[in-house]
């Protein structure tokens, strides 16, 4: 690893740590408890940023997949693969925290609400994106199939985002844009979004460099 890369990784790690500590301080000490939902509303501060960054991850999968099909350079496939992996982990957490929240507020673990269903479809699509690579006869074929799925699957991202406006749903609307939250709640949410964005960048960089190395080792084995 080059000295510049080590410095970049250390700066990102330090920044991520500071932002995460600040986010936890804001969630559990600074922000007041919401009147209607009570203490369980604090799940919101991780649930929403995880969803935002999960969606962002799939936006990058879409961009990198187009670049891969266009340029046919493995680096774009590696970046798309790394981004999809993090996206799936984050959306898994969104679904889990969402069900915990739903159980305490709605009294049920799951309901076939438009937003929830579209998110589940999104999760399954990108899970298929990760699995399709393993079933392809060769690596480039798997990368090609995955890139197509990464582009087609992206259709569900705007559906998830707009579901609360397009259909009547139980899921709360995007309160951040509609001014439905106080300034302290907004600050806490933005801090959490920043912390998870840095975490996403760190994991994607590490995962991509590892996948790069893996590809090099595989090519060396063939010699």
């Amino acid at each position: 690893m080059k000295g510049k890369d080590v410095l970049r990784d250390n700066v990102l790690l330090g920044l991520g740590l500071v932002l995460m500590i600040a986010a936890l301080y804001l969630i559990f000490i600074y922000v007041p408890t919401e009147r209607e939902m009570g203490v369980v509303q604090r799940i919101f501060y991780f649930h929403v940023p995880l969803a935002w960054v999960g969606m962002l991850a799939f936006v990058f999968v879409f961009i990198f997949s187009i670049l891969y099909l266009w340029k046919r350079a493995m680096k774009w496939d590696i970046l798309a693969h790394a981004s999809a992996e993090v996206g799936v982990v984050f959306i898994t957490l969104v679904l889990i925290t969402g069900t915990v929240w739903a159980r305490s507020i709605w009294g049920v673990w799951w309901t076939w609400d438009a937003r929830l269903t579209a998110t589940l479809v999104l999760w399954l699509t990108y899970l298929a994106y990760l699995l399709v690579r393993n079933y392809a006869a060769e690596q480039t074929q798997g990368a090609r199939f995955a890139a197509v799925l990464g582009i087609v699957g992206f259709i569900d991202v705007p559906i998830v985002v707009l579901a609360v406006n397009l259909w009547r749903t139980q899921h709360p609307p995007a309160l951040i844009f509609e001014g439905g939250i106080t300034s302290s709640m907004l600050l806490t949410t933005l801090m959490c979004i920043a912390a998870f964005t840095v975490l996403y960048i760190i994991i994607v960089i590490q995962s991509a460099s590892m996948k790069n190395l893996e590809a090099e080792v595989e090519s060396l084995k063939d010699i």
Partner: protein
Amino acid sequence: MENMCFLFAAYTIIWAVVFGYVFYLYRKQRKLQQEINLLKEIMNKQK
């Protein structure tokens, strides 16, 4: 109090999954390092 349990469960799951994923990456990296060392060994023997 019941709501506190839900809050605790949600945050515990989040950290468990994030650490689990980082641990998975760490193990993959260690396996890769072992493979690189093995390849180096083979190449050194062939010299």
